[in-house]
């Protein structure tokens, strides 16, 4: 019988993939995609739980998450555009003016 546990495990895997993606990719766009993966992972969790608990709050929250994710995507892409304008690159780690 497939329980919440399976879903949670899956979402955890997705989460980690997303996290690793954020860390290893140089291309800002792909990094953004990885972020989306992480949000999806969360959503899987929420849905699984809401189903298990027979409670809709989870789903509602998931909707918010999706929306927010969309908004973040928009801003992120905007940032990419400026980055490209200023430095003519989409390589995230080349934004390293500051540090230390």
């Amino acid at each position, binding site marked *: 019988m497939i329980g*919440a546990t399976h879903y*949670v495990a899956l*979402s955890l895997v997705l*989460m980690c993939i*997303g*996290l690793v993606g*954020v860390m290893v990719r140089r291309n*800002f766009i792909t*990094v953004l995609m990885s*972020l989306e993966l*992480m*949000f999806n*992972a*969360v959503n899987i*969790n*929420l849905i*699984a*739980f*809401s189903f*298990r*608990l027979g*409670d809709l*709050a*989870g789903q*509602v*929250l998931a909707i*918010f*998450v999706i929306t*927010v994710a969309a*908004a*973040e995507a928009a*801003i*992120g892409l905007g*940032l990419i555009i*400026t*980055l490209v*304008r*200023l*430095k003519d690159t989409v390589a*995230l780690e080349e*934004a*390293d*003016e*500051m*540090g230390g």
Partner: protein
Amino acid sequence: MTLEQFVPFLPEIVLATAGFIVLLLGIPLGRGGVRQLSIFGVASLMVTGVLVWLFGRPADGPALILGDMLVIDNFAVFFKLLFLAAGAVAIFMAAGFLERFGYGGGEYVSLILFATVGMFVMASGASLASLYVGLELMALSVYVLVGYFKLEIKSNEGAVKYFVLGAASSAILLYGISLVYGSLGTLDLQQIRDSLTSVPTSNPMLVLGMVLVCFGMLFKVAAVPFHVWTPDAYEGAPTPVTAFISVAPKAAAFAMFMRLFFGAFASGIDHWRVVLWVASAATMIYGNVAALTQDNVKRMLAYSSIAHGGYVLMGLVAFNQTGAWAILMYILVYAFMNFGAFGFVILLESKGYAGEVIGDYAGLARRHPGAALGMLVFMLALAGIPPTAGFMGKLYIFSAAIEGGYVLLTVIAVIMSAVSLYYYFRIVVQMYLYEGDEEGAEPAEYLRDRWAEVMIAICIVITMLIGVWPAPVVGWAKTAASALGVM
């Protein structure tokens, strides 16, 4: 759901609307009319303030409104007023700065207003859902604000870093929320609190959820090890924004932090206290020590604000009534002294990020004694030297920690606050002990700007006032904190 129910929600509505209007006004005005927009923005903030005062305050005890999404209590009021003040200061301080750098004011002001709305929700959210969206609203606005000087590489870079890390961390936060939801079946803080008293908090998944939420919050308050975004975001952001985000979002984050951990997750304290203890100690040490060798004032203040976050966390670790109101007190004090300090950075900063290096302050006492004196006051306050407000803030935090019995933590804290004096005084040394005419020194010119100066003056007055006569503020903080009903 009747219309009357929305009355307490009025402030948020007004603010959002005002933000929208400013945005629209801003489009035709383009780069001009910053001042007018600022006045409009601040006016709307004031109106909101009045509304908060009229409808925001609970008639009798905390009240849940609008489907238990928001709670109306003194705690929220305290923070809301703080946010409003912060917003106003940020807008007024920015006006001259934006003009100097040739950026339009419309988006800026509206973003500040929207961010304020988000923080309102964070401060008064009664459900994980509302808290989360509030958080995101605030965060997104701030991302944009940080990147607002889109032609400055640093600005953009700061925004990028802040954004990427912020998004990741909010995912973590959400993950935590989902776990909590999964194990308790509700998003409403009140219910969470109640069920936590019944459900054994030993449930690892639940506790893990709390811890992940805690991580998310720690990111927002820039606590080690989630502080990494801070220095770059602060340094990169336009200075008024830096001032704003170093104060308001941080305060909002702490407000949410307290809502969650003094309110909903209170009975889980024994599980996550250790995390906070470590984070707090690490933050204080890291922030202060790393700040010692910073030559860029904005960056130094960034580290210093990390460190201050650490002090505030002590209040959470202590987890007692004193801690609760001490945090409020500290945040309030910190808001004004930090704003003041950044105010001078703003006044000294001209295009090309001149005026950010410590050397730029050389001999300020000679050329502008008033300014130097003001800066001195803020440096002392940040270092926690009486009779400034900074000391009063620290006093209560430390007091709370001692009451909690966390002597070691307190000792770390006091030692570190002594250390912090060193880097704050590096600026003082430049201002007073150097003449500014040594070879190789080209001190930045001090660009007069009435509005900013008035704001700074207000900050000075408040900083000194609280330092000398803190009783009333302490009173408010206590009433506000009591709304949380910690033990």
